[in-house]
């Protein structure tokens, strides 16, 4: 099974009521690959990402994670989700728990790790995102950038096979974007499989192995960043990139 991909999406359709948001998506993410998904607002990027860990139920099509069909109604969704880290635009840290507890709660309650082991892993991941000194703080006392780094650490504590990021820097003040991208870049360097919805073209062109351009529920164009970002073939991609450039 050498050809097996980390994520493989085949002919994925998703309706919200009568609205078809994903209109037959096909694409793969290989092991250790970093794929950035770009595209205009409302094109279905978030929906695609959320279908992959089944925060949304797809209407038809298949999604294979490590070759396993997760759209199967009998699939163990909870187990699946422990293998897929998810980072949200709004961080979504648990405000009633300290940073440390944010990092251990999934480990102890879901993975049944001991408290000591969970804390050890949490400390390791906190150090990795450079926030060891915030261990005992509550999330509300952290800046947006720090909160997002904690959120990344929280996902990493589950030792996932891959990470999904949904516009992880879009809710941040511009000066805080860099620290989060830095953490993501180091993750990519360490070989994490990543799928990143982003408007950060600099990050996409430097870090991504592949860029996927989506519009109106379909993958319009994909390829290495140098091609898709610098020399887009479709008119829609050209327009979108021009618009982003001027923003």
């Amino acid at each position, binding site marked *: 099974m050498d050809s097996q991909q980390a994520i493989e999406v085949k002919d994925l359709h998703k309706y919200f009521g009568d609205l078809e948001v994903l209109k037959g998506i096909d694409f793969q993410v290989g092991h250790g690959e970093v794929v950035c998904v770009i595209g205009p607002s409302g094109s279905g990027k978030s929906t695609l990402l959320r279908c992959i*860990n089944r*925060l949304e139920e797809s209407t038809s099509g298949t999604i294979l994670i490590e070759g396993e069909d997760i759209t199967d109604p009998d699939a163990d969704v*909870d*187990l*699946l*989700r*422990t293998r*897929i*880290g*998810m980072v*949200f635009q*709004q961080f*979504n*840290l*648990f*405000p*009633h728990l300290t940073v440390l507890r944010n990092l251990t*709660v*999934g480990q102890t*309650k*879901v*993975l049944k790790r001991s408290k000591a082991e969970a804390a050890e892993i949490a400390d390791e991941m906190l150090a990795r995102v450079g926030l060891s000194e915030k261990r005992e703080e509550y999330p509300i006392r952290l800046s947006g950038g720090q909160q997002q780094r904690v*959120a990344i650490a*929280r*996902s990493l504590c*589950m030792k996932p096979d891959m990470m999904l990021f949904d516009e992880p820097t879009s809710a941040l003040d511009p000066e805080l974007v860099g620290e989060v991208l830095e953490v993501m870049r180091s993750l990519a360097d360490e070989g994490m499989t990543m799928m990143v919805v982003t408007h950060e073209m600099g990050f996409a062109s430097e870090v991504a192995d592949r860029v996927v351009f989506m519009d109106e529920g379909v993958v319009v164009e994909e390829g290495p960043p140098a091609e898709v970002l610098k020399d887009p073939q479709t008119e829609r991609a050209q327009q979108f990139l021009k618009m982003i450039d001027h923003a």
Partner: protein
Amino acid sequence: MTTAERAGADDSASAGAESEAKARSAASDLASGSQRPQRKKRLTPTQRERAFQAAMYVLAALAVLAVALAADWPTIQRNFFQVDVIRDMFPELVIIAAKNTAIYTTLSFVLGFVLALGLALMRMSTVAPFRAFAMIYIELFRGLPALVTLILIGFGLPIAFDGFRLGSTLVRGSVGLAIVAGAYMAETIRAGVEAVPRGQTEAARSLGMSRNRTMFTIVLPQAFRIIIPPLTNELVLLIKDTSLFFVLGTTPESKELTKFARDFMVSSRNATPLTVVAIAYLVITLPLTYVVRRMERNAGKSR
């Protein structure tokens, strides 16, 4: 009575709207006043307002004076503040009546809360019959007077079913009140749960937590913070509702404050016990309502 009070509890918003309307009409007065500067003899709006206010103060003072003069103070004192009677009420007032009120309240609250939690979870369940049951239950017991429910539990069921003779006053009354309070608190809990942002659930689920695990570890703890003030209000209402226990009949040892006062009024042929008990209730409820108001103010600030 109780229902009206409960409705009143969530009504503070309308008071705000009212004062806003007043402010708006005052502003339009000001505007129309400034449009006609030539009519010098008329008072300015500010002066008019002051004059009106002064008149109201005079009126209030006159009313107080009238009551003070007209009232038969010695009679009032003899009937409502008689020291002998007050003295006779101790220590039973504290060691029986107030204690029982506290016990009944606590028991009803705890039972009601457990019930409410179950109902709220059913109300939000994915299982339709659970939702239907919870909804019917909640509408039923919020719609009925608490007294009717108490009578139902205290007499109706025992008459109908022999096996339904729920032990003491304490148990019957508390179960009855808990059934009512459970309906109200269930809605409070549900509102709290719905106030927790969706992203919290999504983050928890994406860590692999099950629905139930997410509810108990992530959502409910945050919901409870939100609903502590309304739950405390519910507690205050319960304290007062324990006065309904009298319908169940009581032994000397099981009297709560109101029943105690009533019986003492009869034996002492005097209304003083009522005053004493009123004060006893206020001693318990005022600090609680004060705490709630502070919590609500602080919650408003932190937003």
